[in-house]
């Protein structure tokens, strides 16, 4: 799980062009949206694509994504339970 969380932090930084962040700057429980990393709606769409591309998870319910994208910790737990690749 620790390796997955590290991988996610690196992917999020690279995919969302968060050039002013390093993985060490992101706490497992930091909010990804709002006051945390300050991600926006386009970033949310990028994360949905990332889940599909890297882990074979297709999210279709927007309400579900709100919960899943709460933090790296929550996201990693969801991926571990639902990944197909």
């Amino acid at each position, binding site marked *: 799980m620790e390796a997955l969380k590290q991988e996610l932090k690196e992917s999020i930084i690279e995919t*969302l*062009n*968060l050039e*002013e962040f390093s993985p060490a700057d992101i706490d497992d429980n930091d909010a990804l949206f709002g006051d945390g990393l300050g991600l926006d709606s*386009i*970033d949310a769409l990028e994360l949905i694509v990332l889940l599909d*591309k890297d882990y074979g998870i297709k999210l279709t319910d927007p309400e579900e994504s709100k919960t899943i994208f709460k933090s790296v910790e929550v996201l990693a737990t969801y991926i571990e339970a639902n990944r197909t690749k």
Partner: protein
Amino acid sequence: MDNTYFISDFCHITAEEVSVNGTVILKNETAGFETFLKEVYQAIDLKYSKFFKMDTLSKLTFLGAELLLKKEGSDVENWKETALVFSNKSSSLETDRKHQQSIEDSENFYPSPAVFVYTLPNIGMGEVAIRHQLQTDNAFFVFDEFEPEFLQKYTVSLLQEKKCSQILCGWTEVDGVSRHGFFYVVSQHGTTLHTKQNIKNIYTQS
């Protein structure tokens, strides 16, 4: 109302250097254009993380506006009423191609929403408007080449109709090896008359 207009400030951003009103403020020693734009961002001490999410055309547009609208001594009330008139030759073609590549292979079909949102040439002007809270007119034209005569007439028309107090004009070309930006502000303040010939002269200064 005095209908005499001036080119109050201008700026060039090329792969080699950045200059404002004819003075070079930053030279590119080794970096490619995209990296050089990041160096410009750092050199002018910007704190705007959204910059890194933009495509090259929008980064170029954004930096030109930063260099001219908030330069030392600029009138805050004036730049809040700045209209934007931009043009180029290649529209958003480079980003369009990047998006196209991501949807060509049906077995590997993962279009990036962050790329797709920049597949229009006027998005960079939107970024400028958000950054500077501009609620003014904006227009983007695609021409075969820089058109000082058209731009001169169009900007004067906007100013005479009192749609704004000044106009930021830009030529922002990003495609292949052709990567440069030329920006100028038209207002009632300055010493260089806003004529077709003067626009042409400062355009060719870089």
